[in-house]
């Protein structure tokens, strides 16, 4: 299964900066992540790069969704 074979929707589900935490406190990826082939994971990585860059470009303080997520964790939100 190549990156192109996996539906873009499945890849998009992993692009989100939102991450749950498991009972041990570890960040866990969306369930779709486990189903992705090596090539699809490469493609997800590229999509995340573009998504985070666009978020930075749109934010007045240059924050990506990742930065906002970390700040939210820090503040216990």
């Amino acid at each position, binding site marked *: 299964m190549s990156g192109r074979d996996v539906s*873009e*929707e499945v890849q*998009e*589900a*992993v692009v*989100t*900066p*939102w*991450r*749950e935490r498991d009972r041990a406190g*570890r*960040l*866990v*990826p*969306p369930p779709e*992540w486990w189903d992705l082939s*090596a090539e699809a*994971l*490469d493609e*997800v*990585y590229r999509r*995340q*790069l*573009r*998504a*985070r*860059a*666009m*978020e*930075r*470009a*749109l934010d*007045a*303080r*240059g*924050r*990506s*969704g*990742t*930065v*906002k*997520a*970390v*700040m*939210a*964790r*820090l*503040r216990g*939100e």
Partner: protein
Amino acid sequence: MTTVNELFARVCLGDEAAFERWMVVVEPQLRRSLAPWARAVDVEGVVQETLLRMWIYAGDRGDALEGTDASLRFALGMARNVARNEARRLGREVALAEGGEEGAGGARGLGGAGTAGGAAGGADGSSGAGGMQVEPPPVHDPALRRIILGCIELLPARPRAALQARIDRGHEEDDRDLAASVGMKRNTFLQNIVRARRALEACLESNGAPLDEVLP
């Protein structure tokens, strides 16, 4: 003194605003350094975990870091160790071996960085990542922002609503909740984001701002 050093000095004093700005500066390079790990670990999770551990580390013994952009160099080493530990835990070291391990970080001598609490570094308190090229801080481009906003405005209503929800609240809500907030099921929500991103890329290209070329 570099921007990274100035900001991190304030982070060590517990300044959250400085930490946010420090993350804005280092995140792109941190993420790119993890490219070789993309097949083995959830890179987004590793980036977030590393940044959270850097906050803890800063308050604990961050002031022990010395040298130009030492905190960034240390963070790159920590990210690599977090990724390595995660790949090991998931039993995905095979995927890693296929893709190669050497990333942009190149940090060595960081035994323990990335372990619980993240409080570890070189024996001398340095980052141990000599020779790495530190990229200049990202520059905010108001013109690019206007172009992107204009292109988002041109999207059909439902893809625009989905993408906007992800951009505005994707850091604090999962897709199921975001989808519900715009009156969609999760699958429809994801389809609409895909449609939105495709249309957005085409729009940016037609405005002379192809995404891969203009975004840092």
